[in-house]
């Protein structure tokens, strides 16, 4: 009989957004995110109070993955940000701050949610149209004939991750490495549909960042039994490669956890070893120079192969299998018994030893155009190295996104201020007609536009953490920081001149249409990913609408 226990009634929250407790938690999350935003963002240290690993980071992915939210609405926002960064690798903090600001502003202005949702939807469509259109002033095309814009994109991404602890020289070095690795990963003479190549990342701890570099081909650990003499003995030219994905250890492990019953006179281990040696014989006969295996190779087989001048790489690991296949063109062999088919052999042009910092690695170079490269990243300690590895991986992804949409947005908060100015200008003149079309009152419309634009501006404001003012100029609507040394705006596109009128952000100023800059020689220094920011903007508005829509929370505490 089942135990009868009285169910506890569910805890209901009516109008959760007007609940002060929830609002407070929301403000806290917004504070965490906005203080971590940008190049001068403050680092966050996450640790468990029972001890263990301490993480220092300022990226949204690392931060939100480890911070557990108690409030279901915040949990939703956090998951949405994580899903966005999983797809686009960038602009996670932007999305989080913008969503939370939009919710707060709507709530503070006392807007009716259905009306606010309609207006936000309308505005985000207008933003999309503006950003995708030709007359957009905050978008620059990515020039693939020249690596400057690629490096600028990569550099702004790394610079906005202060937990990597890089100085400006190191930042420059790493961003050029990322651009280099990205260029390696594109097939040179591909026709039609093709996949990206692979970039394998190896981290080395305790070395200075300037030792990091990118190598074409694949770098693997030097096998224990390999000696320099073995490599010297190899002549130059193409080398034949065979790759096994099955374990060649000679154990009967495949069967699983069962009782074995063995007939008299049968020795399965010896049979297996003989089979392995037979395989070795065939490989030697086929003049194979490199014998690679994902798992363990039996020492006797290794010895036999080495005696015949074959280089053996064992314990390659699953992660390296795919790049290895791409590099050599070999097909992974999964059975011991049949002979190796001719089509399964691959080729390597060269292999040599490379020393990267403290480690010796064996470099394999492809025989034909295979877009595989290895990035060796060095950093002083483990935490920073982890952050650097993750940042580099993301930066490369962001560069790949430019192939789909070859644009970049102005960074440094200029896109936000420009967009806000444009939206205000566009909607103030036609307010009454649009409000009527959306079936809402004129004042509701004006208030919602104001809430939207001030949320965008708050994101630009969040870039500043040292208590300095943020300014906006009244001609181009770029963001400025009062700095005697800097002669340009935050993104570096507009140069300062004496008659440029500026006013602090979020103060009242007349609406104007931003003038787009033409015939300028200056290049923006800071660029953001176009695809990532566009998606972040859309998803943020949708999330805000969605959270505003929640009118009732029922918490089952059984």
């Amino acid at each position, binding site marked *: 009989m089942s135990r009868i226990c009285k169910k506890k009634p569910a805890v209901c929250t009516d109008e959760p957004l007007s609940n002060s407790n929830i609002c407070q938690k929301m403000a806290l999350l917004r504070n965490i995110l906005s203080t971590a935003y940008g190049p001068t963002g403050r680092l966050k240290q996450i640790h468990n109070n029972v001890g263990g690993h301490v993480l220092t980071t300022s990226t949204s992915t690392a931060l939100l993955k480890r911070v557990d939210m108690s409030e279901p609405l915040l949990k939703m926002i956090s*998951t949405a940000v994580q899903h966005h960064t999983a797809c686009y690798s960038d602009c996670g903090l932007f999305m989080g701050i913008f969503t939370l600001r939009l919710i707060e502003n709507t709530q503070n202005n006392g807007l009716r949610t259905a009306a606010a949702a309609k207006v936000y939807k309308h505005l985000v469509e207008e933003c999309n149209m503006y950003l995708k259109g030709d007359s957009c002033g905050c978008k620059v095309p990515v020039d693939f004939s020249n690596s400057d814009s690629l490096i600028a994109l990569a550099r702004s991404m790394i610079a906005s991750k202060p937990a990597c602890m890089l100085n400006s020289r190191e930042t420059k070095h790493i961003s050029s490495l990322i651009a280099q690795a990205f260029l390696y990963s594109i097939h040179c003479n591909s026709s039609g549909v093709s996949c990206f190549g692979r970039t394998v990342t190896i981290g080395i701890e305790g070395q200075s960042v300037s030792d990091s570099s990118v190598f074409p081909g694949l770098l693997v650990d030097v096998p224990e039994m390999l000696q320099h003499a073995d490599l010297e003995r190899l002549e130059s030219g193409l080398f034949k490669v065979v790759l096994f994905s099955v374990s060649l250890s000679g154990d009967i492990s495949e069967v699983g956890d069962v009782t074995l019953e063995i*007939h008299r006179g049968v020795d399965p281990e010896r049979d297996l070893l003989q*089979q392995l040696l037979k395989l070795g014989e065939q490989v030697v006969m086929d003049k194979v120079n490199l014998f690679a295996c994902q798992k363990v190779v039996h020492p006797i087989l290794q010895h036999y192969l080495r005696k015949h001048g074959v280089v053996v790489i064992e314990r390659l690991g699953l992660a390296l299998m795919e790049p290895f296949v791409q590099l050599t063109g070999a097909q992974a062999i999964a059975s011991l018994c049949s002979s190796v088919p001719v089509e399964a052999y691959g080729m390597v042009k060269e292999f040599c030893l490379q020393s990267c910092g403290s480690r010796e690695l064996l470099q394999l170079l492809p025989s034909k155009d295979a877009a595989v490269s290895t990035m060796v990243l060095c950093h002083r300690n483990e935490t920073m190295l982890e952050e650097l590895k993750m940042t580099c991986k993301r930066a490369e992804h962001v560069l790949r996104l430019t192939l789909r949409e070859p644009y970049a947005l102005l960074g440094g908060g200029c896109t936000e201020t420009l967009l806000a100015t444009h939206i205000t200008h566009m909607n103030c003149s036609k307010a009454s007609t649009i409000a009527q079309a959306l079936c809402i009152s004129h004042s509701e419309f004006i208030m919602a536009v104001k809430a939207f634009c001030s949320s965008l501006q708050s994101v630009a404001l969040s870039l500043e953490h040292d208590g300095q003012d943020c300014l906006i100029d009244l001609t181009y609507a770029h963001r400025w920081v009062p700095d005697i040394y800097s002669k340009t705006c935050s993104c570096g596109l507009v140069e300062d001149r004496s008659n440029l009128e500026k006013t602090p952000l979020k103060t009242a100023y007349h609406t104007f249409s931003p003038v787009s800059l033409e015939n300028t020689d200056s290049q923006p220094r800071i660029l953001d990913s176009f695809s990532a920011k566009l998606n972040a903007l859309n998803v943020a508005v949708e*999330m805000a609408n*969605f959270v505003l829509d*929640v009118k*009732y929370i029922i918490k*089952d505490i059984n």
Partner: protein
Amino acid sequence: MQEECVSLQVCVSVVGALECVVRRCLGPDGGSVLFTRDTGETLITRHGQRVLRTLHLQHPMARMVLDCVCAHAKATGDGTKSFLLLLAALLRGIQDSHMQRKGSWSIPSLQNLANRLLAVSRKELEDVVTHKITPYASLYCSHHSYKLEGIILDLSISGYISGRVGISQADVLKRVLCEFYHKVSQDQNAVETISFIHSHFSFLHTSVTGLPIGCSEVIEGLVVTCDWSVWTEPAGSVKALILYESFGASFVTVGENISVCIQKDYLHRTESAMKQKLASLLDLQVHVVLSSVKQPESVLQWARLNHVSLLECVDSAQLDFLSNISAAETLSHPPLQHLVMLKYCRRVQLSGHRYACLGTFLHMHTLVLCAPAPGFLDQIVCVSQGVFAMLQHLSQSFCQTLASDQSQSPSSDQSQSVLSSQDLWGGILRAGGVLPVGGMFEFLLHHFLLNERNSCDPESCRLLAEALLCLPRTLYSHNHRRFLNIQTRFLDDLKQWDKTKEQRSEMPELKFGFGFSESSVPCLESVSGKKQLVVSVLQCLHRLLCVGAILNTRCPLRTGPQTHSEEDEDEEEEKPKHSNSTQSTDL
């Protein structure tokens, strides 16, 4: 055994509590409800039935109401929130009239009232709907046919969606659902298409997180949510093999206590057995293998060498579906293997994941639904599924009336005509099967019930008519003046309509319905669904009012077949509620 007396007061408070939860979700201006559990599960919904099901209802009366709601929703796929609002309004109406009389309702008199209301639903309601509302709807639609022609499907879909997702997502979702319907139907039989989509919806959609809803799209072919393990671009149509078991000998599936006997040459034997199996595949000229389980590494190697594409870990229900729709040929010798012809195989990329896409010869399309976060996505998927349930109800009720019309006229041929998409929607339009949303049905019914001359029970009619107005009132709760505006305008229109009908002069333009938003065409909802709603509510009310007492027992209740009455077929465990007043006095 405890006895608990049930009074009208209890009914009102129980239904009122339920109403309180769902009234926030009503209409396009409503909000959604978020449920959370300590296990971390979250559910966000505006769907009335889901809200009620997720609440763990304790009170037996509430559970009975829930059963009625579910039965109604199963029939029409729509109107659960209105159900509760109307029920609560009716109960309050009864209570108020009792206050006015200053006399107490005895249980028999309540029962009597319930019976009378039920009678109203059988007679007056039927009359009003068939003779007054349907002609009105038909007239209305014919007046605006130039605007409605061709987009009636879109309008009914948006009528359904607008109460279930946020206002900003409704257009996007409507657009993609209509596109999906049109692509799947391809001017085939509309009724069949709808029921096909409705019954196989789980295979015909794929969900993607991390993107805005605007990225939702319709993709040709059947999308399978896993990537090819071995991929070679096949040219043109290919033969595919569907597998449900692994090629390799696996001991894990057999059980734990087994022993393996190793003989001489065991290595070669297992190897050659596998080889034989694989060679037989090549004889069949198979270029694609779809497997519901993981295959051993050697099969992958074989596939790579022989340029066969291999897809592993496919949902076996989806494979069944594929073999059903594309007339699979079942192989005789190895069991559980099917051969199908595929038009093409592709790889599609959806937000960073690569999925397989199979083209069948039947025009198959997959609906890709995107949303920023999983809970949100769930809501959208659920709504999309509900749309097709609603459409199925709409098309089927139309077919039923069509069939009954045909049987009445002997001249019509007996062959079941195949309705094309245009025929079906045009037919529904002309027959007056739809009305604009936003309280039009309620206004009409209210008006006609009050003015029914030859009604035998004016008191019940008035009760029902007053309660009906609560729906539009809640719909415009944020703007009460709007409600009054709409009501007066409607009454003016109606008077004009009556006048012209008597004089048989030219029809004036009926402006009603367009008053909601001057520029756009209103969304539509089904008249039969609405009628069913009123009937279901009155039936539920009848059941509620007939309960005299609740007996709490400890022993499990078993209702044998002999105790089944015609009304409680779906009520296996709810016996005590049915003990009506006479029974309770016996105990």
